[in-house]
């Protein structure tokens, strides 16, 4: 019996990413509430009846062995803690292999990361797993997953963290479908039909967090393959061989309890706050059993150790934790902040959402927001530091405002060699190990990654460390991302928006930035204001380069080489297609490829422009045969032009739609293309409203977009001569649109009848719904990327 109950656990100390590397050499030494996180992990394992814990450390530094010794002391003699160096292991699977080679693993074992913090009870699960394994030895792995609230992605959760999409057989809990990271995967999602033969009903989860607790059978080594690196790889392999049924993986989704892994700064902050708010009960700060702390619990989730010296009029807000012998000067305030022992904090210091480690000195009047500050950091008075990470021993001696940086005490840009050496020792850098172990397999990847690395280092050199941090400071900038990338971006955009003071209510369809930039472009490109705005817009352009629909720049200058080329390419394809009557789908895929090659997104606009251009050529050809070289454009030519354009649009609106569906801002481009074209071309001018109607009827562009565009036309534009000739019609049309949008019922009837003419044949409304869904999807992806 004893043998049966014996349970081992292996703790993988390095998580093989370098997210927290700026502040600790090893993730498991990251301090959560002043206690290294490894202790929480070990507490969790001991609580669940593990008798032997193998800790993979990656190095054999004295700090680590000290830490392990401390762990042994608090956990007692019942649980053995065995350090396991595994120096050049590069991934979880490597660690397991090595551990097995050294005959450390005997039977079933738990596999957890070293940065796990949890209070769930998995004893029952382990028992059940063992029973199941007895019945069917193919049961080799059980994944323990936890629901995450879907609404709570930002800003604390690491936006880059993977979100798996899994399908589990409803009855047997067997894992049958697994997508590692569905938010970022480009592939089409969804379980293949073949699964349903054996598993008629699945439960699909997309709301699970990657908790990384696994119950493994010793037989798991049978499904490791040479290129397996992470557990996800292992799972994929097992599922890939599903027909052979060599391995069964089960999934248990935990309803109760708390589990999280700390692998980034946001998650570090979040977990700390959760601890303070007692979500992890019975693990709470005043438990004081993990370490030699003596916290006491005060009101509103505030905790303090003894010997804390507080000045007068100090405001201690909610969710704070103050370690032993901390001194805080008068009038300071703190909220959502954790301060480790022996820190000295001056007067009038404001701290919000900060984590401050051991022995930090902060002088008077400093403002800290969203910061993680390492051991022994010195911050000069009057500094303002927001959204930053300061490495151990950083010293800032001048009065500076620092925002959105990660700052290291070592200079990574100059210390190329040295830094790589360090990384080898830690056994954690992907690139280098790749070279070491998998030279032949991944050569290309390596080069790429190295390139990336070099590029990054180049970038680092560009930072003006001195001017940012001050002459006498000690510290080097690692990157300019800060902790919460996204939050800050949003703020900036908002500010920018406020400055420009566009008062119109932006529609839901655009993300702010898009909307903003579109407006910007309009201003830049309005036909009559070219000259006056040229100088201003140059600066704007530089700023907005990424957003700028380049099709307009082309209208203006016709210089953009690359863009020209790209347009030409599409033109060639399009004309070919016209000649040879290719399938629309073929055309779409060709154009899309071109677009991707040139990194453009406005293929729809280009196609529309092309159509107008071709129609124009067509009409001038016929024109030249009838009436030679009259300066005035004949009526026939106008009509010819419209007819041709109309028929071309009818034929190819599917193509345009295909490229517009990504977002309505692209549709806005379309409207502007037509506008610009019609303004410049006399033939087209009188047909302008007809074109608008056309693309509206074909449901390429939505009412809202059109109306928004119309409302955004500025006065200068409206005053232009050519505009006035169409203004009346345009206004009529816009009223029509507004009616269409507002009114329902009878009015729509008429509208509908009109529409139906175009609906015939290939057009099916259901398809449209599908596309809309795509719309959303694309927008969504964009959002994520921001």
């Amino acid at each position: 019996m004893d043998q049966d109950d014996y349970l081992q656990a292996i703790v993988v100390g390095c998580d093989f990413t370098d997210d927290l590397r700026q502040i600790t050499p090893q993730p498991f030494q990251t301090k959560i509430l002043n206690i290294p996180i490894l202790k929480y992990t070990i507490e969790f394992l001991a609580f669940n009846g593990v008798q032997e814990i193998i800790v993979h450390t990656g190095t054999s530094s004295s700090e680590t062995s000290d830490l392990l010794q401390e762990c042994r002391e608090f956990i007692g003699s019942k649980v053995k803690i065995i350090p396991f160096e595994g120096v050049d292991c590069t991934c979880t699977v490597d660690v397991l292999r090595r551990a097995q080679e050294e005959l450390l693993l005997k039977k079933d074992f738990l596999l957890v990361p070293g940065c796990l913090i949890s209070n769930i009870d998995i004893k029952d699960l382990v028992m059940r797993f063992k029973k199941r394994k007895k019945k069917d030895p193919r049961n080799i792995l059980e994944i323990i997953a936890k629901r995450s609230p879907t609404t709570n992605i930002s800003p604390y959760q690491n936006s880059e963290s993977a979100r798996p999409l899994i399908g589990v057989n409803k009855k047997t809990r067997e894992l049958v479908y697994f997508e590692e990271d569905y938010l970022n995967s480009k592939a089409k999602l969804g379980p293949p039909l073949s699964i349903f033969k054996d598993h008629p009903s699945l439960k699909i989860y997309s709301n699970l967090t990657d908790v990384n607790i696994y119950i493994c059978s010793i037989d798991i080594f049978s499904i490791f393959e040479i290129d397996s690196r992470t557990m996800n790889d292992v799972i994929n392999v097992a599922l890939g061989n599903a027909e052979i049924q060599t391995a069964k993986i089960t999934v248990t989704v935990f309803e109760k309890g708390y589990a999280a892994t700390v692998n980034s700064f946001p998650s570090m902050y979040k977990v700390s706050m959760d601890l303070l708010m007692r979500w992890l009960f019975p693990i709470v700060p005043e438990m004081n059993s993990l370490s030699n702390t003596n916290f006491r619990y005060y009101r509103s989730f505030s905790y303090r150790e003894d010997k804390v010296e507080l000045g007068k009029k100090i405001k201690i807000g909610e969710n704070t934790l103050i370690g032993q012998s901390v001194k805080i000067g008068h009038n300071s305030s703190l909220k959502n902040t954790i301060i480790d022992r022996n820190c000295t904090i001056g007067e009038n210091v404001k701290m919000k959402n900060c984590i401050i480690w051991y022995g930090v000195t902060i002088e008077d009047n400093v403002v800290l927001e969203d910061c993680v500050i390492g051991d022994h950091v010195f911050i000069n008075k009057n500094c303002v530091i927001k959204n930053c990470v300061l490495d151990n021993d950083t010293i800032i001696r001048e009065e500076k405002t620092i925002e959105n940086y990660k700052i290291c005490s070592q200079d990574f840009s100059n210390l190329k060699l040295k830094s790589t050496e360090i990384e080898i020792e830690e056994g954690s850098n992907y690139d280098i190990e790749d070279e070491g172990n998998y030279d032949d397999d991944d050569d290309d990847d390596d080069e790429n990654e190295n390139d990336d690395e070099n590029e990054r280092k180049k970038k680092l050199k560009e930072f003006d460390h001195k001017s940012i941090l001050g002459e006498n400071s000690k510290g080097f900038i690692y990157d300019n991302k800060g902790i919460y990338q996204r939050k800050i971006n949003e703020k900036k955009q908002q500010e920018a928006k406020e400055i420009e003071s566009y008062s119109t209510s932006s529609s839901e369809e655009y993300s702010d930035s898009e909307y903003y930039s579109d407006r910007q472009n309009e201003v830049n490109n309005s036909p009559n204001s070219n000259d006056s705005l040229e100088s201003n817009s140059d600066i704007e352009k530089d700023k907005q380069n990424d957003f700028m629909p380049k099709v307009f720049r082309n209208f203006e200058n016709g210089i953009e080489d690359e863009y020209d080329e790209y347009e030409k390419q599409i033109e060639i394809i399009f004309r070919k297609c016209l000649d040879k009557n290719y399938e629309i789908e073929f055309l779409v895929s060709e154009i899309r490829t071109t677009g991707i090659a040139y990194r453009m997104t406005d293929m729809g606009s280009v196609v529309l422009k092309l159509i107008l251009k071709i129609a124009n050529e067509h009409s001038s050809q016929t024109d030249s045969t009838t009436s030679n070289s009259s300066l005035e454009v004949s009526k026939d030519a106008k009509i010819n032009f419209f007819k041709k354009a109309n028929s071309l649009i009818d034929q190819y609106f599917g193509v345009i739609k295909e490229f517009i569906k990504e977002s309505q801002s692209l549709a806005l481009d379309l409207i502007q293309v037509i506008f610009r074209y019609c303004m410049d071309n006399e033939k087209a001018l009188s047909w302008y409203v007809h074109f608008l109607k056309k693309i509206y009827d074909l449901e390429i562009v939505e009412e809202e977009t059109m109306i928004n565009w119309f409302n955004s036309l500025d006065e200068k534009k409206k005053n232009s001569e050519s505009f006035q000739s169409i203004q009346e019609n345009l206004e009529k049309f816009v009223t029509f649109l507004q009616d269409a949008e507002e009114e329902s019922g009878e009015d729509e009837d008429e509208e509908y009848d009109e529409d139906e003419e175009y609906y015939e044949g290939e057009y099916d409304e259901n398809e449209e719904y599908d596309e809309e869904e795509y719309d959303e999807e694309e927008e969504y992806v964009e959002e994520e990327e921001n």
Partner: protein
Amino acid sequence: MDKIQSPIQFVVLAGGTGSRFDTLSSDIPKPFLPVANKPLLQYVFEFLCKSNVPKALVVTHSGLQQRIHKIAEKLSIEIDITTVSPDLGTADVLREIASKIDRDFVVISGDLITNVPLHEIADIHRVSGSAMVMLLNEENEENSKKIRKDKLVSKHFVGLDKDRVAMFLSSFDSGKSVKLRKPFLEKCSEFELYSNMTDGHLYFFKHWVLRLIEKKKKSISSIQGDLVPLLVKAQFNPKIAKRLSKYSQEEQYPNFKGFSSLEEEVGTENQQFNIKCIAYKTPRDLLCMRVNTFNSYLRANFTLINGNPFFSREAYRYKTVYMHKGFKIQEGDEIENSLLGKELTISGTKNVINSVIGENCTIGENVKIENSIIMNNVKIQDGCQIIDTVIMNSVILEENCRLTQCTVRINQTVEKDTNTKNYIFGEESFY
């Protein structure tokens, strides 16, 4: 009328060409196919009667009205028959009869055999305020074994988030995998995905759905194929929901038209995403079968003869056999799990297992019948062996025939000593 109006209208779709029936329905129109010796449509009527539905609209093809009336006469249900052209889709049919529907309504397919509690579903519909409640049935694997494979089964993928229908896909449009879209997953992050759910084709709809059907002539032609997927999608796609809300809002504020501006301010936000599609899963011990394929026809027959509440009172039960007066079982007879129609004569020892035999049949000596369905007025002469076979009306089987997995069509005569497997008699002579 004098009576209080029922709050819900019932529409029975008794058309259907039975195109997936192989040969059966070309001889007998689908509503009248005998299932356990009763016309298929009668099951629907009985179901409605039992649920105290006083009145139903019945939609069918021309030529079938009289026989439908006949079926309804026996039951306490008032029916109103409309005929439509046979090539219309199910939603097209609703569009045709839209003028007759002025309330929330229920659409029932004429080929449904069920005993689910209709009032419960109605309650769910009312309480949840859902646009649609649909009847679903999870098929057990055990049932589907032993029976010939369908050539064409319309398979569905149904996603359920608790009792909400989150996904409704037919496998034909989903390619090699079931597509899941990211925005959908964000909104509906946990759900059960069934491939073995069958759609009972019993739908409760809000009245506004009818308006939607009327408007979208081009894009909605079938309920199952177009309307249901659209409604289901609308739950999680704000854009579609917004469009549909045009239709639904009119209804939700019928008396407040004067306050339209207020309505827009207050109402839209809440109403917009409020389309709900609810599923009613058939409880394990109740029946929900659709007879729309040959296979399901067999299954329905065999399920029904295994003891259930659908038989008329005339039949009485002896052990596992249902039979009529005048038929006697003697010692040595092997009769199990079967339903025997009126006026049946079997000479000599009887050997009937797991089968349905219709009215006025004459069966000779030494005949063995197993897993088969024999309709009315069939004569089977001595020494025949009939296994896994369907024999339709007025067929004569001459001596010593051995039929396995066959279908014999109406009025056929099978010559003596025929020994075949997997064959349809009379196929060429008709079409």
